[in-house]
């Protein structure tokens, strides 16, 4: 393999240092596998939801009665925009090596992500107070809260991770370790987007249609 083929894509680790790239490949590959395992978890939660949203209503409210499609749509936009912002953060890291602009884009990502979590919490609040639909009401709602809650928990831990990364950029600058961590955080963040698109489609759209 030539040197250029061994360079890890998506992250600028200094073109003359193939060893760092090899090491990078290992950690990033490991993180992909972690994401795969995490997706299995979500798959299980989706399957559970699929079964329980039909058979677990048990006289409680049905999906169409409790979901607010507008809110879910706005949440989708927020999350997609935050991913978009993270994309710019990564581009800034790769091509400009400018810590300040990376931090600015991270801040945008974080604000959008936090707004997403805030809106979702508000959704929960409305469901519980206005629709009488807490997770204890039925199997369907238990599955709904677990699926979306697990996603929200992932997003929230992503936010905490983002704060830590911001501090690390400030402390260490954009060194190899920090770059690789940002890269993995980006993968994590984009995966959560993908999962959310699944939730939006299968939970909200299908739920309102049915």
């Amino acid at each position, binding site marked *: 393999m030539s040197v250029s083929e061994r360079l890890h894509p998506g992250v600028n680790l200094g073109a003359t240092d193939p060893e760092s790239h090899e090491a990078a*490949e*290992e*950690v990033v*590959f*490991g993180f992909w*596998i*972690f994401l*795969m*395992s*995490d997706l*299995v*978890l979500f798959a*299980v*939660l989706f399957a*559970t939801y699929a*079964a*329980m949203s039909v*058979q*677990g*209503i*048990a006289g*409680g409210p049905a999906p169409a009665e409790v979901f607010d499609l507008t809110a879910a749509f706005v949440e989708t936009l927020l999350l997609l925009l935050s991913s978009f912002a993270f994309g710019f953060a990564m581009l800034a890291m790769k091509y400009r090596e400018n810590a300040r602009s990376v931090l600015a884009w991270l801040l945008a990502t974080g604000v959008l992500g936090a707004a997403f979590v805030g809106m979702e919490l508000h959704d929960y609040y409305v469901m519980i107070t206005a629709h009488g639909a807490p*997770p*204890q*009401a*039925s*199997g*369907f*709602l*238990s*599955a709904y*809260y*677990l699926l979306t809650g697990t996603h929200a928990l992932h997003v929230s831990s992503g936010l905490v991770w983002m704060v*830590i990364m911001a501090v*690390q950029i400030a*402390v*260490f600058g954009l*060194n190899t*370790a920090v770059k690789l*961590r940002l890269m993995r955080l980006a993968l994590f963040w984009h995966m959560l987007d993908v999962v959310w698109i699944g939730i939006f489609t299968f939970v909200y759209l299908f739920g309102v249609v049915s």
Partner: protein
Amino acid sequence: MNWELIFGQLQWTSFVFAGAILDPSLSEFIASGAGSIAVLGAVAVVILLTVKRWWVPLWRDWLTSVDHKKVGIMYMVLALVMFARAVIEAALMRAQQLVAYDSAGFLSADHFGQLFSTHGTIMIFFVAMPFITGLMNYVMPLQIGARDVSFPLLNAISLMLTVAGAILIMISLVVGQFSTGGWTAYPPFTGIEFSPGEGVDYWIWAVSLGSIGSTLTGLNFAVTIYKKRCPGMTLFRMPLFCWTTLCTSILMIFAMAPLTAVTVMLALDRYAGFHFFTNGDGGNMMNYANLFWLFGHPEVYILILPAFGVWSEVVATFSAKRIYGYTSLVYATMCIAVLSFAVWLHHFFTMGQSANVNAIFGIATMVIGVPTGVKVYDWLLTMVGGRIRFSTSMLFLINFLLTFILGGLTGVLLANPGVDFQVHNTLFLVAHFHNMIIPGVLFGMFAAVQFWFPKAFGFRLHEGLGRASFWCFAPGFLLAFFPLYWLGMMGATRRTYMWSDPEYLPWLALAMAGAGLILAGFAFMVTQIVVSVRQRDRLACPLGDPWDGRALEWSIPAPAPEWNFAVLPDVTSRDAFYEAKQSGQAYRSPAAYEDIEVPRNTATAPLIGLFACAWAFGLVWHIWWLVAVSFVLMWAVVIVRSFNMNTVEIIPAARVKAQNEAFLAAARAAPGVPREQEMTSDNRGKALPEALTARAGAVPAGRAVEVLS
């Protein structure tokens, strides 16, 4: 003062000793006895460590170590300690069933329920899993020519999470009760309505900790095998043990997530009033059965595949011959791994689904028998054309081939829904899975210990005592479990603490005798380790190759140095070290040495384990401040660690060179030991390869005395 704020649901009556005071019965005394053993054992360990001044070395060299070899050894120690508890529990249950003919016996129904639940949970999650994980940890990096796993710290964290789960289960001996829901913990029985109290919570959190640890292990090992093989080590040059490790790792990545999900759902049902598996309100326990076995069936192969790897190594080495059908074995392993996800429904044929669904899953289950059967016959054919030495490991292999194939027979029987309808939930089923797991996994691990112990510690295990343990274990297993097949066919249900059928008695007596033999085998095994440690000078094999080994791990000194390979090997074929010995390339000095980077020890993993254990304990007893504090601390450790950019240390080339050249010189100078003297004190770990002696005609037919058997 609100005590509940501080102690949650913990009360003085929660302690096991209170039971013996409030209700003085034999069952309670046994429970208190077990609790006392746990407490006294812990106290004894503390005293021993203090008297011998071992605290510092324990912390410095072991608990904080991220070296895959030490992590592996710690896993194995954990497995042995937990095995001691679970095997004694098994013997207690056997004794109870023997005496409880139309009477209550000496154990209460509740105590018996806890025993079969802890026995199963411990044996699967805290004996079998740590055993295979520890072995893979120790052996796999050495076999692929790597210096460590891809993520050494993550590896240590996996270990410490598993240890945390094991400690939690040990705590349940002393504080509170364990679940009576069996190792599968089927709701709604394990729901809060039918099992109030802390028992099921102990199960949930112990299993969850183990499950997360195993997920991380699987991830780590898969990446290691994909990314860390030494130059020339293509996938199809890897020893078979590495192949089985790879398949097991992939299974762990995919199969542990459903378990984590299902324990979390059960916890939400119990703690927060959710309705995943409750009776009514839209809960459905059938989802539990599906999710649990979506983990549970691959789990069976997670356990057995590494053992298959061990058998492949053992049979080739002690037949002094290449493995037969390497490619075939690789593909069979992969077939098994893939198929293991397609058969989970056979654990509940009796749930009322349509006959077509049952039949499809039944046939899928039978299909797994094909690659498994192929493997068994591959091992047989490996012996053909070999020169078989009947070492302890090999005796376990022979026993495995004969008993495992019988287990396969009953497995195919159980794959038939019609047969399963009759013997499901009976002792027939219990006999079947013990028949697969004991001769397959457990004895596989025992064989592995006999085989790789010299590599890990630099001295062999006492062969005579090893055989003694084998001659107790093997017939002990037959006696303990074959009667159960018959009992199951007569309709004896599992998890039953008393009987009213006199026909069962003789069979239960046989099973009890078998359990006694198994205990004796375990006693011999412990004795073997103690005696071997005492005679370590006589049994020493520092030159690293006591068995005329074939893969890379035998090319380095015993015990393996911290850096494994002074210079990463460059491999050109399968059985790399065997080929090197054939061509006279073994023990050659490398052209040049380089500095070696190794990860520094760190307190991160043990601290995470400690806080995880505290967190789980808080959850079990609803001590919310402890839950919050330990959760925050656990993640604080992770965050603090992420700010440490100085995590490796450099071992200078000069030091590596000095040590390695000394070893190579000693190895070159030592005379090769012929296989006749394998078990004598002449065996210092330099083998006279069997294949070479055979070619040179060094062993005339008349002199080929059977020294070993």
